[in-house]
Structure formats: C-alpha cells, structure tokens
C-alpha cells in the first residue's frame, strides 16, 4: 500500500492533478482501479474447486485492451493473499476458452460489444468478473467500476456472484452499489 501511496504522489506530482481524484488522467484512474482489484481479491471468497492447489496463484485475466499498462503488475507483484500469489494474463476475445483458468476476469471497456457472450461463457464458473463499462453488472457481470463525482466506485450484482458461487464480504458490499439483473435471459439489445 505504501508503494501504492507513493505512486499516487508521484503521479500527482508528474501530472499536476488531484491525488485523490481520478482526474483526466487514465493512468491515475487505473492506478486506483488496480488497487481496487487487489483489494477485491481480499474480500471475495472463492470456492475450493476454483484452485487446483491450496497455494495456487490467483490468476487475473485482462480481457481486451489493457488500460493498466504495468500498473496492475506492479500493484500485485510480491503480494500474497492467504498464501496465494498473483498471476496476470492478458487475453483476447478469441481466447475465450482460456477464460476458465482465470479467477478474476477484468473485462476492458474495449470488449463492451461482447459483454453478454463473455458473461454467458463464465456463468456458473467461480470467476470474479469485473467490468469497466457502464451496465456491465446489470447485464450479468459480478462487479463493475463506475466513476462518480470524480471518484472511482463499484457495483455488485449479488445474483451473479451467487451463480458464480463467490462470497463477497459484507464489508465490500457496504461500499458497493448493488445492482439487479436487468433481465432473466441477460440479453439486452444494444
């Protein structure tokens, strides 16, 4: 976290923007989001079957264009949660079958057209899907980043989480915006 703080300060100095705020800089916003992802991992419980071994790493998949750059890698480097390290994979829409190896799947805003198919693909799998697109959670994603008042917030779809057999800590939920699935079939024409 110290590093994280330090980075914020560095970036704030470099970009002349508000340290706390997201600002106009994507890097600053994704720095915060990277921290949030790491913290989500702390407050979400995966079922046992999600990991082949007790010390298997938490695999974070970044689907689509990577907005983080090296930021997320730096954030989770050398970190461990309950003995598990992090592994980051960068995925393409075409690697859909590889999604199943992930524990956390970050769906970049570049994949906003494939959201329904992605959600369908990982439905009932213990994968924490995190969207970066408005309406992602309502469409069946488990979590979604939103920016309100220049601050990064997040949404949680509890049904989706339930389907994925993921337990989200109440502490996380108190901070989250709970959203309902728009439709039972999960499909919504654009």
């Amino acid at each position: 976290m110290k590093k994280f703080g330090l980075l914020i300060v560095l970036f704030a100095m470099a970009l002349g923007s508000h340290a706390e705020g997201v600002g106009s800089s994507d890097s600053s916003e994704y720095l915060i989001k990277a921290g949030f992802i790491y913290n989500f991992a702390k407050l979400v419980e995966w079922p046992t079957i999600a990991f082949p071994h007790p010390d298997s790493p938490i695999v974070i998949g970044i689907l689509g264009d990577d907005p983080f750059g090296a930021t997320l890698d730096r954030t989770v480097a050398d970190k461990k949660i309950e003995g598990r390290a992090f592994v980051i994979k960068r995925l393409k829409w075409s690697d859909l079958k590889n999604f199943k190896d992930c524990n956390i799947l970050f769906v970049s805003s570049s994949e906003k057209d494939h959201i329904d198919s992605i959600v369908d693909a990982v439905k009932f799998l213990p994968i924490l899907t995190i969207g970066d697109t408005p309406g992602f959670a309502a469409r069946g994603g488990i979590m979604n980043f939103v920016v309100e008042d220049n601050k990064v917030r997040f949404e949680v779809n509890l049904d989706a989480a339930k389907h994925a057999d993921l337990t989200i800590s109440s502490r996380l939920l108190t901070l989250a915006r709970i959203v309902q699935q728009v439709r039972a079939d999960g499909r919504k024409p654009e």
Partner: protein
Amino acid sequence: MNLKNLSIKRKLVLITMLTSGVAVVLSSAGFLVYDLISFRHSLSEDLITQAEIIGYNSAAAMAFKDESAATGTLSALRAKDDIVSAVLYTRDGKMFAQYVHSNTPQQNLPAPIAERGYHFEGSYLEVFQDVTLNGEPVGTLFLQSDMRRWNARAERYAMIFFSFVLVSGFFALLVSSKLQKLISVPILHLEDTMRMVSTTKNYEVRATKFYSDEIGRLIDGFNTMLSEIQQRDMAFHQANDELKTRTMELEGEIVRRKEMEKELVDAKLSADDANRAKSAFLANMSHELRTPLNAIIGYSEMLEEETNELGKVENVKDLQKIQGAGKHLLALINDVLDLSKIEAGRMGLHLETFNITQMVEEIVNTLHPTILKNSNTIQVRLAGELGVMQADITKVRQILFNLLSNATKFTDHGTISLDVDRSTVEGQDWIRLRVADTGIGITPKQKAKLFQEFTQADVSIARKYGGTGLGLAISYRYAHLMKGRISVESEPGRGSVFTVDIPSRVMTEAADAAQAEKFKDLPSAADQTKSNVDTILVIDDDSVVRDLMSRFLTKLGFRVVAASSGEEGLRLAKQINPLVVTLDVIMPDCDGWAVLNKLKADPELADIPVIMVTVVDNETMGFKLGVSNYLLKPVDRDRLAILIQEHRVTRHSTVIAGMPSPASHRDASPETERVGSNRTAKRKKK
C-alpha cells in the same frame, strides 16, 4: 487542648475512633485505588476494543477510499458519550475521515503518531490503532475518550467513601462510648476514691472492684495499701499521743530542772558570797591580828635591846617570852593563811633565779642558834658547784626551813645533816635537798598522815615540842606546786630522812616566765651612779611602822627618810632617788598600788627597787606591778636586811667594792643578828 491531658474516657473513645477510622480509610482507599486503577485499565481495554471494531468496520472504506462510508462508520460512535473524537488517517498520514462528538468543542486534532496502543493525555484517554484489511495495514485510527465514566465513578466512590467513613465513624463512636465504660468507670471510681481519701484523710474508705482484670487487681492493691496506711496511721497517732504525753512530762521535768538550777545558782551565789565573806574576813583578821603583833614584837625587841643595855637582865627573859609568844602566834597565823590560800588555789608562784649555795647558807645561818639549842651538830654537804636554779625562792626557803626546824625540834644531842646535789633524771635537771636527823623518828602509822594539815605525829608531841603542825603540810604542797615532790624514810628511834626534789628550772605559765625574765633583766638596768646609795625611803601611814623601820634600818647603817602618805613618798622619791623604797598598801587617799604604778611609770624612778611591806596578802598583784620583793607585816627583819643588802650590792657593786656581800653573809651577820634576832644575840652571849 493537649491530647495527652484528655480524660481517659475521651482517650479511649478517641483511640477507638482513630483506630477504626484508620482501618476504614486505609481499606476503603485501598479498595478504591485498586478499583479505579482496574477500571481505568478496563476503560482502556474497552477503548481498544472499540477501536478494533471501528477499525475493522472502516478498513474496507479506507481500502476503497470511501470517505463517506468511513465517516458513516465513525459516526456510529455517536452512541458512545465518552468518545470525544475519532480520526482515521491514511497510511501516509493524511486525515481520511473524522468524527467529533456533537457536544464537544472543536479542537485541534493530533497528528498521527507512530506509537500504537493507548495512553493518557491530560484528562483524555487516547488510542492509536492500525486499521488493517486482511492483515495488511491500510491506515490508522485515533480514538479519544474523555474518561467521563471514570470521573463519574471516582466521584461516586468519593461520595460513598465519605458517607461510609461518616457512618462507620458514627457507629464506632456509639460502640466505643458504650464499651469504654468497661475501662474508664473502674478507673474513674478509683480516682474518686483516691481523691476522697487524700482530701478527707479518711483511710477507712475502700474502692469497689468491678471486674477481675488488671484494673481489678490495681483496685485490690490500692485497697491493701489503704488498709496498710490505715494501720500505720493509727500506729502513728498512738505514737504521736504517746510522744505528746512524753513531751509534756519532759517539759514538766525541764521546768523542775530549771527551778532546781535556779536554786543551785542561788545556792552557789550565796556560797560564793559566803566564801568572799570568809576570804574578806580572813584577810581582815590577818590584818587586824598582824598590826598589833607588829607592835608587840617590834617594841618587845626594842625593849629587850634597851633593857639589855641598861643591864636589867631579869626583865630580859620576860621580854623574850613576850617576843617568842608573838613570833609563834605570827608563824601560826602565816601558816594558816598560807594553807587557806593553797587550798583555795590562790597561791601563785613567783619565780626567780637564785644562787643555791647562797640560799642554803642563809637558812643554815638563820637556824644555827636553834640547832645549837638542843645540843645538835649540823653537817652541810654541798655537791660541788651547784650554781643557780629558777624557782620560787620564798617557797624553797620555807620548805628547807621547815624541814630543818623539824629536824632540830625532834632531835636531841644528835646530828642534823643537809645534802644538796644536782642530778638529771629523765632529761630533767633536779635539785635534791636531803635533810636527815638522828631524832625520835616516825612510825609507819604516823608517816601515813604526816603531810596532812594539823597533824603532828602525836598529840602529845605537840604539847612537848610545840609547833603548829602545819609545816610539813605546807612544804608538801609547795613542793607539788613547783612540780616537785617530797618523801620521807624513817625508823622510830633512829631518825628520819626527808628528801625534796625540785626541778632546777620550775616552769609555770607564760606570764610568770615573762616575770622571771623581767627580773633577770633588772640588775643590768640598775647602774645609776647618782643614786643615793644608802638612803631608804619608807612609805607608810602607820607611824609605828615608820618608827620601827627607821630605827632598825638606821642601825643597819642606812639613812632613812619616811613619808606618811603616797604623795609625799612620790615627791621624796624624786628628790632623793633612794636605794630602795619600802611601800605599804593600805593608806588613805593614795594607796600603795597607785604609788607603785606612778613610780614604775616614771622613767627616772622605774629602776628603784620597791619592797612591799604590807598586811595585804596579794603577792601576785605586787609582782605584776613590778615590785622586787613582797614582805608581809609583821616584817621579818632578817629577811628585810638581806634583801636590802642584795639590792645595794646589785646596784652598786662597783661603787661599794669591799662592802659585805650577801655571799659572805656570815661576816655581816653580827649586825643583823644583833638587830634582827635577840635570841641569836643571846646565844652568842652565852
């Protein structure tokens, strides 16, 4: 008021109160302190727990930078009145969220500090606590409690404590006031009893014993002491009564004794009066007796001489009888007076230094006629050169005279021997006079009473030999007066030996010794050349005496000037500066003592020797005033002649060289004998 002088009642109550008070206060305070400390500890524990909960609840908010959520979490503290403020800090020290209790004035919030845990800051309890998310620190929580719970508790405790102390003190007072009587009542009773005993002095009172504790024993002891004192008191009163009785008896006795003493003093005074009367009578009588005797002896001697010259031998014998009787009477009177003086202790010693041989020769010469009378021979043996001795020459002479007279008296056709020698016994020089005779001797029975007064060996002897019977008694006392002794050895029919031992230097009191010195000095001062060598001044108011003295002294070859009064005598003495003055005492106007004083006070006349010729028997007085010789009337003419000759020789030894000296008295004696002793003259004519 001094605590120590409180009454025992108050002391007991005070002790109880203080003891219980101290116990209550200490235990309560101990409990209180313990409770407050533990309460404080639990307060901090509570606060830490609170911080943990808040931290836990706000961890996620912090992790996800959700200030409003964090603030909401913190605002849950509103229910906790004691929590004044709460602050969440990010990891880099920035304030993340803050909570301030609504009724707390805004204050400066402290900067986060590195030290975690609780601490007391002023009246606040503060906690710094890490906020962690899954073990990873995300920030720091600061909680501040105003400890109002603790303060309230302490206040409540103080109230409880004081009321507790008050109530327990009240009950302690109640109980101790009741219980102290157990101790104080017996002691106060004892004190009352003691005071009563000491004020009323009534020792019959007893103190009541309440309990059998130490005070009970004290009361027992006190009662025992009281009964002891009661007994003593009674005994003391008895003794006192007895003492009073005795004292009264003694006082009576003292009064009686005083009366007796007074009687005794009276008796003594009257006895003294009687004694003085007797002495006066004796002195008077001796004067009265001697004055006529003086005339009888003097004129009978004169008559005898004249009758002899006229050749009327038949009358001479009668005149001699008159003379003899007179002299005997005179001797008797002298002896009786001497003896009475000795008895009264009034006989003093007049010490002078004299030549022993000369003295012995004088006496032997005087007695020579008497010795010859009983056809006795005398042998005088002097052991070598005897020199001088210091003694009362008159008394030594009288002793020797008495012994020799006795020897001649009781010896017929025998030999009288006189031995004189000097010896040293026990470091002292003695002169021994030994008179032996071949007379009738003395029986042992007679010897026993020999030296007592009026005792002759036999009454018949007195008739046969005459004598007063006082001679030996006087000699004996004179010898003792001079610290000497006298003894006798005898065999009836074979003779007697009397031995007299007298110290060669008789010592008396210092005054007498000084007197002797004065006498020793006398000759050296007496070398007046202008002195009228042969003139003798006779001072006497009695014309008989003047007449007799003039005739007698003229016959001895002296010129005689007579004065009938003291004043005349003094005037004449200055005029003629005589060889010797003879002085009477009893004279009208200016008596002999006054004349003597004036003579001795005048430097021109002081050296003239004065011979007292008087009936007043007061030698001591005379010598004190400076007389040279003291003769009692009637005058022993032989003695007077010798004395005057001595003075002449002493004063003018150079002027009258060739004149008869006292040492060759025998050569001068024809004249003396002829004038002074008719008997001697008569013997010579035979």
